[in-house]
């Protein structure tokens, strides 16, 4: 896809995130918005998937280890055609299939997740399964930077590095904020790059909102043999919505009606800017 198309789609994904969280009156917009470009790139360009056949055997797999950013994943899946975009506001409602955290009953969701640190292990298991059977699918997993404080992440990193799972790609959404504040003021996981290097990962650092850099990083990951890849993407929490940007307050809070209107106006303004740029 052209970058301009990806940017437009990412903006649609962001609108879906804000709409879903507003509809739920709860949820996690900040980290969903920081990863919106990544969700878009994965589902619209990078991964071998088929929305008409979500269980396709040789598909690439994605595990949202930072499962609380389900609105981002759901919005990308809906916009990709796995289920209707109109269902997004039912997020977290009793009776809705759109559970608060990713659940395998949802079309396109490859693994239930939400308890931090667990998704990366399941993703490593999928990658190992491909290796055992000589299959060529790739496995991607997205972690938060705060999530790196979970010990299980490093058990999984040790496992994947030791097993040389070069079909495995860990992405870290480095927006620098977690619930209690900046990650440097809670229990800093820095240096993230050196840690993954020590666990025998090929490490690539990029700007999370630059599609050229995202594309190049995945090409490099695919070309890397004999070791898994970790893409550390420096991102802006709440990206695209003025009052949510780089604000820890918007980690896990829903906008009220007034805030929702401002958020959508912000995103519509981005639409107009993208159109004007063409």
């Amino acid at each position, binding site marked *: 896809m052209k970058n301009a198309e990806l940017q437009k789609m990412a903006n649609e994904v962001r609108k879906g995130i804000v709409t879903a969280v507003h509809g739920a009156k709860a949820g996690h917009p900040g980290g969903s918005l920081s990863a919106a470009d990544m969700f878009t790139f994965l589902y619209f360009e990078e991964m071998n998937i088929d929305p008409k056949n979500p269980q396709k055997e040789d598909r690439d*797999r994605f*595990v949202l280890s930072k499962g609380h950013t389900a609105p981002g994943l759901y919005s990308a899946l809906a916009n990709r055609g796995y289920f209707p975009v109109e269902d997004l506001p039912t997020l977290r409602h009793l009776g809705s299939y759109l559970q608060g955290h990713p*659940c*395998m009953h949802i079309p396109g969701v*490859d*693994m*239930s997740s*939400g*308890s931090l*640190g*667990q*998704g*990366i*292990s*399941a*993703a*490593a*298991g*999928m*990658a*190992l*399964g*491909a290796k*055992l*059977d000589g*299959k060529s699918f790739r496995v991607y997993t997205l972690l938060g930077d705060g999530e790196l404080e979970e*010990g*299980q992440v490093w*058990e*999984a990193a*040790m*496992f994947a590095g*030791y097993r040389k799972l070069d079909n495995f790609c860990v992405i870290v959404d480095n927006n620098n904020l977690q619930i209690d504040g900046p990650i440097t003021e809670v229990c800093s996981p820095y240096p993230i790059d050196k840690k993954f290097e020590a666990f025998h990962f090929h490490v690539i650092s990029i700007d999370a909102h630059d599609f050229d850099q995202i594309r190049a990083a995945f090409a490099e990951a695919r070309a890397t043999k004999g070791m898994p890849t970790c893409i550390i993407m420096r991102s802006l929490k709440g990206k695209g919505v003025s009052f949510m940007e780089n604000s820890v307050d918007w980690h896990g809070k829903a906008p009220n009606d007034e805030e929702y209107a401002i958020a959508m106006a912000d995103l519509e303004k981005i639409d107009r800017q993208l159109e004007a740029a063409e």
Partner: protein
Amino acid sequence: MEEKKVKKIATRESYGNALKELAEEFPDLVVLDADLAAATKTSIFKKAYPERHIDCGIAESNMVGVAAGLATVGKIPFVSSFAMFAAGRAFEQVRNSVGYPHLNVKIGATHAGISVGEDGASHQCNEDLALMRTIPGMVVMCPSDDVEARAAVRAALEYKGPVYLRFGRAAVPVINDRPDYHFEIGKGSVVREGSDVTIVATGICVDSALGAAAMLEAEGISAEVINICTIKPLDEELIVKSAKKTGRVVTAEEHSVIGGLGSAVCDALCKSYPVPVCKIGMQDVFGESGSAAALIEKYGLDAKGVYQTVKGFLS
């Protein structure tokens, strides 16, 4: 008098043997261990099928997650470690990564209960049945001997969904070696008929219950013994039927009396046919170091201990 020699084998060994025996029939079977293959006896499988044995190192939480991932791509993973670590340390991983998505992961937990022996309380897991029972959709099994352990491993492989299997460290008598033996998940069996009291037992306590029943018979007390391998789903019908006949129930397990077989039996009885129940097991205490036999005797889980408790309960 001719002394009858009883064949003894530890159920962890039965587990390792069964995995190896079933490997050809179930090509998707893979075995994961956490640096304990020699102790859990998955080393038997590893020796025959090294490419299907994945040692995850001393990292049980990750191991359970890796098994979950393997299950999503069509493998049938058996996760092995001591019960303390498989059900205890990795409880939340089993709950969220295996139980919630109802994945086809089997947990083969060895060294359960106080028969771990000399290692002491830190390694004697008397809580695993309670923990695993609370996970929706989890099948929980605790075989009583070699025959049942091997049958349970096969049944777990044939069943689609999460299963917890509990095995022991110590060699135990083979008690189910008979031509009409039949194993089915969720089905208990009356291994001795009686009319005065029902002893519902699981794991190594089935043999103790049979021994106790023989001692009680010498005193004119007729005890019915029920072997419950599947603690969840429980064979409630069989237990209620026996309780209606005898009017009193004793449960016996190498586990805490809180949350295990005893609690499951009480849940079943109070629903449809409440009768007095006496629970034999670890009475809300930790174990300690000692030989398996000495510990089993000290905590009243051997035939003599069961006999004494049943007698006290009836008087």
